[in-house]
């Protein structure tokens, strides 16, 4: 009985913003659970499959077998113009695209969260200064600037690409965290911590940050989907990964040749459909999380 009372008191005192509430709400959404499991299995499947593939063997040029149709000669998805196995390239490409998007998400989150909390917590001059910088980055035509950057870097690979994209993708997280930290910083528990002499760093990252976790998990999931889109889009245009490193985007890039687009569908269509599935699945999970985190939209 007493325990129950305690729980009720706890419920009344703290607004339900914790991760547990989000997860509890999320579990009620069947379709979201299915897409979450599906996407997770898909991603893990591709990552594991890529480990067992011989990348050099797949990327070896066999001109005699160029544009083999699917199912012929043991090529389940056919081959491209250089006779490379499309199924193998699809697995490696998916692995690369997923890992790149993952890395960009982590880098931009760390930068965005750190900057956002500092801006929101300290306010004043620091907030003003970094807000102007953030606004400047937001007004940039990002896609164009990234393309210009990619052409400037003389020798670039996966690592450089991740850094360049990250440089122009941290703003939305920073702005979101700032606005939340701004209102969170005025709460009593923050003032209480301050009077007790807790260091600013501890208040920001041990006090405020956990209270933002439910919003952040939504933001990160949606960012991850967005980053898959950006990397594949850039690679599609020819400004992402170099053609020697397959990504889902470079595979779709073959479709810029009208003959491939109209007649050799097996070269570009599987990669396009995989991008589509990834985008739909991750975005769906993200939106379900958002519904779960937003008290107004709860299913009940």
């Amino acid at each position: 009985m007493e325990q129950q009372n305690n729980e009720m008191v706890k419920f009344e005192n703290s607004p339900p913003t914790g991760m547990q509430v989000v997860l509890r709400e999320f579990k009620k959404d069947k379709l979201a659970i299915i897409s979450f499991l599906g996407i997770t299995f898909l991603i893990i499947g591709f990552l594991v499959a890529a480990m067992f593939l011989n990348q050099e063997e797949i990327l070896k040029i066999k001109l005699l077998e160029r544009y083999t149709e699917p199912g012929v000669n043991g090529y389940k998805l056919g081959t491209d113009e250089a006779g490379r196995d499309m199924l193998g390239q699809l697995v490696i490409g998916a692995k690369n695209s997923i890992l790149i998007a993952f890395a960009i998400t982590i880098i931009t989150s760390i930068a965005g969260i750190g900057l956002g909390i500092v801006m929101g917590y300290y306010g004043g001059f620091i907030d003003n200064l970094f807000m102007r910088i953030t606004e400047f980055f937001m007004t940039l035509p990002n896609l164009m600037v990234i393309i210009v950057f990619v052409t400037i870097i003389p020798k670039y690979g996966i690592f450089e690409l991740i850094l360049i994209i990250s440089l122009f993708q941290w703003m939305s997280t920073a702005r979101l965290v700032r606005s939340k930290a701004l209102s969170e910083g005025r709460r009593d528990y923050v003032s209480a911590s301050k009077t007790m002499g807790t260091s600013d760093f501890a208040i920001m990252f041990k006090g405020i940050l956990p209270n933002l976790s439910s919003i952040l998990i939504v933001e990160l999931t949606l960012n991850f989907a967005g980053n898959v889109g950006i990397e594949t889009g850039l690679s599609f245009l020819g400004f992402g990964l170099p053609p020697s490193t397959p990504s889902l985007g470079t595979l779709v890039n073959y479709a810029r040749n009208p003959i491939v687009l109209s007649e050799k569908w097996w070269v570009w269509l599987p990669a396009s459909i995989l991008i589509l599935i990834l985008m739909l699945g991750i975005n769906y999970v993200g939106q379900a999380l958002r519904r779960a985190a937003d008290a107004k939209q709860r299913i009940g």
Partner: protein
Amino acid sequence: MWKTIVRRVLLMIPQMFVLSLFIFILAKQMPGDPFTGLITPETSPARLEELRIQAGFYDPWYVQYYHWITNAFQGDFGRSYTYKIAVSTLIGERGLNTFWLSLLSAIFIYLIAIPLGVLAGRYQESFLDKSITLYSFISYAIPTFVLSLIFVFIFGYKLMWFPTSGTVDVGLEPGTMAYYWNKIYHLLLPALTYAILGTTATIQYLRSEIIDAKTQDYVKTARSKGIPMRKVYTRHIFRNSLLPIAAFLGFTITGLLAGSIFIETIYGFPGMGQLFINSIMSRDYSVITALVMLYGFLTLLGSLLSDIIMSIVDPRIRID
């Protein structure tokens, strides 16, 4: 009102200045120079050096920047090295194509989004509403280039309903009815692709506006006066919910511009997006800098426009 608009416009000046400096320095870092592409057996290296000096290629960057920015203020963004015409003329030509494409897309967006948004809001939680929500989710999640490629593949190559590239067929007399019709025909598929991708925000916004409006007092008043529900929707709710949609116009313009790089590349449509990609390939600095500046300017203008329209249609919102 005017004061805030003027202030916002004035605030754009430092932003544009920093953007121009940023872009100019970036463009100068690009490897190779536009003259390397001009080397033929007849041009001597000495002549090439002369050309480079003439174009101010060896001046310090701030001198080059000064020349560029003062000329830019007079509408002179230099000459395109690859197309051999003034950048302003070139962008004007391509910009006009992009403009028509964007205009048609915007029309399509509203033609698709307004009925869907109204229906979804009116029949909330019905099967229709759920289908529309699913549609708007898919159109939100699908990347531009994937949808465009699938459309070109299905409607262009398999069904052959639409042309797959260009703005107009060759051999048609400019000025004739057939010529203009052919131009619109070339615009249809890219504009439709654009529109499908751009409907999400409008549908969602309109839907939630209408759901909100249902419980408002003015709707209850109208109902109690005996006005049939159908009329309440078309006369009262619709008008009130439509105004904020107008405010999205600014963001719609910006969104259309961002998508133009993919759409124009895939549909082989000679607009500004395609020009940008081609200029990057040929290291055509003057075109690249001018285009990035233009896109940055339009992004700023779009958000300003949205704020202004918003404050006109809803005086409770103040911009500052």
